[in-house]
Every structure is written in C-alpha cells, then in structure tokens.
C-alpha cells in the first residue's frame, strides 16, 4: 500500500518515556478484527489512553494537550512483541510519521518502513537530551532530514545522524513499496521458483 513520501519533517513531538513498549499496548488484539485498514489511529495505545468506560485517562501523554506533533519519542526496545502491522498502521493513522528511540524491535521497525513511518534510531545519550529538552519546553521541534539522515533539535541545533539502508531510504523518499520493486523482477522470481527443491 503506497503512502505519502517522506522528505524533511519538522515537527513538535510527543514523548513516551517507557521501555519495552510492546505492540499489544500500541494496538490491543481486540482491535485487529477489521477487514479494512480503517480507524486504527483512534485505538492507538487504547488501554493506556482510555479507561474501561471509554473516558480518557488524563495522565496519558496522548490526552495531554501540552504535547502534539508528528514525531513520537519512545524508549529502549520500542515495538516489541507481536508482529501485527496494525501497530504501525495505528501509529501512522494517528498522524505520526516518525518514531524516535534508542532501540527498535525488529519486526515493528520493518513494518514501519513498509507503511511510511520512519523509525529513527539514535544513541541513548541523545535520546536523553531530547527527553530533557522536551520536558523543559514541550514546544521543542525536531527536524528529521531523511536525505541527509540527520535528526536535529531545532532550538539548540544539536544533531545526530541515523542509519537507514539506501534501498529503504529510496522507497521512503518516493513513497514506493517492495511490491513495486518485486513486480519488476518477476522473471527472476519465476526462474528461481522453477528450480527450487521444496
């Protein structure tokens, strides 16, 4: 499914300083019953965000008007657990285009890249600085520059580079996905299939 291309994003942020945030928290299993990709943003972090009677939990950051923006700042091992891509959809559909953390779980990271959310992995030290800066000034903006692979705190100019392989980068910059690529090498695939032992 194609998505909006990603180039340079300048935005304020939503901080979530909790480790090992798993995809069951990002989108609980009971919201996986859809047969279409619709409405997942509403249920992002559902059980942290709402009480059982659907009233908002006021101490959760998504319910705090002080923080907003297209960048979610997470902690170590963000997106662990279930492989559900719905988690990445929920993040995207809510309006985030970028998640920043010092460490991502594998499948989640991959899913993000497939749906148009840029996972930006930075050093634990820089992450700490970002959390601190945002705490001091909730309006702090980050600039995520994909072509230069650089993330910068707008106010202080402090920055760090991040990794992304050039293939995925190209996809993100253009809003392409893997199926577009695979369809272009169809013949290679059918030749391969004809000779496979199993």
């Amino acid at each position, binding site marked *: 499914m194609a998505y909006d291309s990603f180039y340079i994003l300048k935005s304020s942020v939503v901080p979530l300083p909790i480790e090992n945030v798993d995809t069951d*928290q990002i989108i609980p299993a009971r919201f996986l019953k859809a047969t279409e990709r619709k409405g997942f943003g509403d249920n992002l972090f559902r059980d942290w965000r709402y009480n059982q009677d659907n009233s908002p939990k006021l101490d959760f950051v998504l319910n705090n008007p002080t923080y907003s923006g297209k960048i979610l700042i997470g902690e*170590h091992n963000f997106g662990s657990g279930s492989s559900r891509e719905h988690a990445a959809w929920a993040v995207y559909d809510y309006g985030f285009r970028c998640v920043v953390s010092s460490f991502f779980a594998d499948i989640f990271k991959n899913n993000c890249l497939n749906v148009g959310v840029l996972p930006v992995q930075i050093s634990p030290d820089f992450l700490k600085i970002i959390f601190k800066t945002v705490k001091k000034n909730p309006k702090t903006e980050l600039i995520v520059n994909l072509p230069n692979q650089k993330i910068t705190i707008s106010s202080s100019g402090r920055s760090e580079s991040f990794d992304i392989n050039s293939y995925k980068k190209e996809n993100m910059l253009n809003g392409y996905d893997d199926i577009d690529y695979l*369809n272009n090498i169809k013949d290679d695939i059918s030749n391969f299939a004809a000779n496979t032992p199993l």
Partner: protein
Amino acid sequence: MKKTLFDKVWDSHVVKSIEDGPDVLFIDRHMVHEVTSPVAFLGLKKRGLPVLHPERTFATADHNTPTVNQHLPVADPLSRNQLKALEENAKNHGISYWGLGHKKNGIVHVVGPEYGITQPGATIVCGDSHTSTHGAFGAIAFGIGTSEVEMVLSTQCIMQPKPKKMLITINGKLNKGVTPKDVALFIISKLTTSGATGYFVEYAGEVFKHLTMEGRMTVCNLSIEMGARGGMIAPDEKTFEYIKNREFTPKAKAWDKAMTYWKTLYTDEGADFDTELIFDGSEIDPMITFGTNPGMGMSITKAIPNTKDIKGGAATYAKSLAYMGFSEGESMIGKSIDYVFIGSCTNGRIEDFRAFTSIIKGHKRASNVTAWLVPGSHKVLDAIKEEGLLEILENAEFQLREPGCSACLAMNDDKIPAGKYAVSTSNRNFEGRQGPGSRTLLASPLVAAAAAITGKITDPRTLI
C-alpha cells in the same frame, strides 16, 4: 566457505541481493490466517494481482475463533466477518482453507507441522510472530507484517536484510520437572526481550538433541520473545522420522531427493556466528514470570528481584510490578491464582496435555480456579480423547474446549477478567494480552497443572 545451518538455508533462497539493501528471499511455504490477511488480499485486489503460488499457500482460521460451540455461527459479527473474508479470499485464489469445523483446523503453527507443510530447509512465513515455531525442523521460519503477507501472496518473495547469527548451546541434562518451556523462559530471562534483536538463533547442544520434536517447537516458538527473528535446530533422524508420511511431505523418489538436501543441513565445523552463548542445562529450574514481559521470568522458587538488581529502568520495572499487584522481594510460591490456561502454539500440543494430566491425575481442580484447556488443533483434540486423557481430565473436574488461539491473545470471548491472575502456558504476559487488565504468569504445563489443583503457585516437583 564454512557455513552455518542458517547460512545454508538463507543463501539457497536468495533470488537477488540488493546492494546496501535487503535480499529478495524466495518463500517455500506461506501460512495464512484470518487476522493479518484481509488487508493484504484487499491490496492485491487494488493492484489487480493474483496469488502467484496458491499451492504454496495454506490458510487456517484460529486467532479469532470461539472455543465452544464451533458448530454454531460465530456470534461476534466482526469475527464472523473476518472469517468469511478469509474463506472467500481462499476460494477466489484457489488456496486450501481449513476453516472452523474442518478436521484439519487448528492453530496455524500447530497444524503446519502436523500435516508436513513444515519441512527442513524450507523458508516459511506467516503473519504471526510465532512462526518461529517451524524452525524446530531446520526451517527458516519467521513472522511478517501484513504488507509482507501481500508481498508473498503476489510475488512469493519478501525483502529483508540477512540477520546476524547467534548460537545458543545448552549442554548437560535437564532436571526432573524441567520442560522445554522452562528452557526457553530461562534463556529469555538471561537475554531479556531485546537480547537477540537482529539475530537469527540456532540452538545446539545435548539438551536440544534430546528434546522431542514438540519440545523443540516450544523452544523455537519462544525465540521471538528475546527479540530474535527466529530460531532453528538442525534436522536429525528424529526430525525425518516425525515428518515422514505426513500429508504434504514428499513421498517415494521425491522423498529420497529431499533427503539428499536435508542431510546437508547442519552447521559446518568452525563456521562463524556473530554471537555465541553457552548455558548449562542442569542449572535450569521450573520457571515462572512475575512481570509484564516474557523476560521477567525466574526459577519458581525464587523471590521477585529488587529494583536495584535488575537491568533497565526502575520506573518501567515499578510500573510492571504495580500492574501485576506484586512487590519486590516477594516469593512466588503460594500466591493464589484465579485462572489456568493450557494451550497456544507454545504449549497446546499432545505432549503438553500429557504433561498436564500426569500431574492432575487423581486430584481435583481447585475450587478457586477456572481452567481453560484448549487443544492446539483437532488432531490434538482427537489424540486427547484416544489416549484416555479426557477421562482423567473430566475425573479431575476439568473441561476441554475446542481448538484455537483462545486466551493466548484473547481476541475471542476467552478473556481473563481484569485484575485476575492466570497461569498460562502461552507466550506473552504483556499488559492486557489475555484480556484488558488481565495478569499473566507464563509457565510450563507442569507448573500450570500444579496451580490448577492447588489453587496457588506450586512447585510441580513436589507433586511428581
């Protein structure tokens, strides 16, 4: 060049390598279920693409299905809708579909091996992270997201960079009452839930050699819980014996040909891993988790660690214990519990039910315990009946449910109520995993059995 088992299988499936990018990996078997596939099929439709290899694709209904009255229409309209979507998609694309009521129906990772879809040296994917289960046969098997499901449906390939390689060796002998589940929970407790992120694991050493195929499946199943993409064990005589004559395994000449390939599937002496870990099997006790991720496990006889002794953030740790209603320093033994869940692709196979009944035989279910016993498949259910286990269960006042994922992820009605404690043989103890507010203690079928008859956390070794 010396190669690991993983190298051999991966490299032989690379259609194309992209410079500074992923490999295009050919997928031999694709397992599909109702939850992660509908949007993928919708994507195919939008692009006007067919399923490229329906004969390599297998669909079953499991995540969303009720575990009682399966002969009746599914009551929840959303679940019913999802099941119907899978049935129609399978039909339209010529994919074999083992829906509710079908005699081959069951949890995707239980039925795959049962019918020989799972084979050594194969690449196997499914939109479910516990696809790693199939690695027990020497396959490269891992979970994928829905975009990738669409990719495999339309091109039979996925695009991923080759993971790093980790070797986990466990020698020595397992003690009485220690099961494959304990081995896995032990490893995860040592590595944490992110310790193997970016890696594909091979398990080697005496302990794994002596495990049954089902035991190997339990261990490989849980590889994902330490962050690994998957885990695998080199195929041996036990593996070949297990898969021989199953419905989808090759027969006659084709079998001999496959065997020639399968016999090459081992790690060459001196092949390189990025990380190697060694543990001693005799140091493993029956395990239990006390927190909200599978890495928060320990020997059942130990006390909950103090904040100062744990890795990771104190605030996260405190939040986790608060959710569980536990305090640091407390002993687990003797804690009262409310529910017991036997099932899932981790511990829902026949050997798990044998283990469970071995403990409860001659006892009665504790009156404070609600027990959900959910076979992983119809084949398991039939075996429970044939082997006389059902009678033992019923004499002990337990009831059996019908196959499915059930309370493993609680998408159906099998939800542990908020605040209640469940000893579960499944794989995840995340907040709310078994129902909003539920509190999960992961353990082996033996520990679950001991809890089921005593109503509290009990060391199963006292009952053997």
